[in-house]
């Protein structure tokens, strides 16, 4: 870890969410809720987390991750863990 920047984390995570939601990264908003706004079910939400954690090679705390409901909450969580 250490060399990754907040900008890079945001860019990578938005790219994953865009792919899984069928939207463009610029259409996504920080406050978008996975379930209500993006229509993600629990399977898709977990897949988003799996893809980003694989990219940065770390194991998330699933109890903590389950609490995260918006794009910005996940980005902040990743920043805390990775930077």
């Amino acid at each position, binding site marked *: 870890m250490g060399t990754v920047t907040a900008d890079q984390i945001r860019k990578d995570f938005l790219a994953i969410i865009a792919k899984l939601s069928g939207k463009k990264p610029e259409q996504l908003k920080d406050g978008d809720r996975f379930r209500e706004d993006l229509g993600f079910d629990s399977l898709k939400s977990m897949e988003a987390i*799996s893809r980003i954690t*694989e990219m940065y090679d770390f194991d998330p705390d699933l109890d903590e991750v389950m609490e995260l409901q918006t794009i910005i909450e996940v980005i902040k969580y990743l920043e805390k863990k990775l930077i």
Partner: protein
Amino acid sequence: MSQLVSDPMKQQAALLSMLRKENIYTYSLEVTSACANRIVVSGKERINFISNNYLGFSTHPEVLKAVRKALDKYGLGIGGSPLACGTTDIHYRLQEKIARLYEREACVLLPSGYQALLGSIQATIGKGDVALLDSLVHRSIVDGVTLSGSDKRMWLHNDTEDLATLLERVKTKYQRMLVIVDSVYSMDGDWADLKELYRLKEEHGALLLIDEAHSLGVLGKRGYGLPDHFNMPQAPDVIAGTFSKFAGAVGGFVTGPSDFIDHLRHNASAYIFSASIPPMTVAGVYRSFELLDEEPQWRERLWDNISYFLKGLKEIGFDTGPSRTAVVPLLIRDMEKTMTFNKMIFDEGVYASPIVHPAVPPAESRIRLGVMATHTKEDLDRSFEVFKKVGKKLGII
């Protein structure tokens, strides 16, 4: 409200209460007729688009004759698990028939399609393995993977490039990888690309399980489902399915190599801890399989109706998504309008199913329509009139 309903549950209860108050709740209404092209619901005959009884076999006279004969011989049920007294001679005959149809060594019957998926997945993977699910697979598959204790990963619907990337990424982490797809997807009515799935599973050393629920009796030259459609009978490793669609009955099956089926019989809780399918149902399903070969006209009529229906809906201006089969979505993309649309067509004599969040994302709210071989041209034309009238009134078209 009772103490059994927790605070999170109360939110949903409030929504249901609102739908009932607004008089747009149409789930689980009382049906007082057989499941034919017309169905009597809440005391009135309506055109039936809510069922999965695609071929209309549940009311076929030959099927009913076979059911009556078995009822006289075996009674209401067989009174035990398939491992106990629940496997009669006709259960064995049906298992052999399905195994032959799918060109497999063995087959086992389970009480429902849901249980067939639970059992087939639980028998295939466990801790240390991973299931790779198309994002639109049926809930029974998600529950089956949870029950199995394996990890689960998801790839984008029918996007085999995404699957290939995922396979590459996870292949060193797990002992076994099981790719699971619906042959025909229950909400969108499109089908899986078996050719590409087979190529990928061979390339990456994965296993492939397909759920034939909405495919058996519909796809393929002989109606033998997705493997028949692609002329690739050996492509899947395991095949699960149900009799609730193709025969309009109930019950499920899993077919594959004989050692695997034997393992399932002795390890899948969905098989062991449930009473067997009643023999009369098995007899009716067996006769339905015979009719698939003897009376291909039902499948031909179904496909004529699918083409006519899809074309008609598109001409009116409806979005039917990627559907190519008997499952036809009318995409309305707004939850409230979907519920209202459904109630309005119901009042005009058309019975269908509103599909809203959380079953689908809110922007994919739709009416789900099941086409039947027994629908008449008059049924389909009348439904066009109703959909057009209501669609215009609500500003959908």
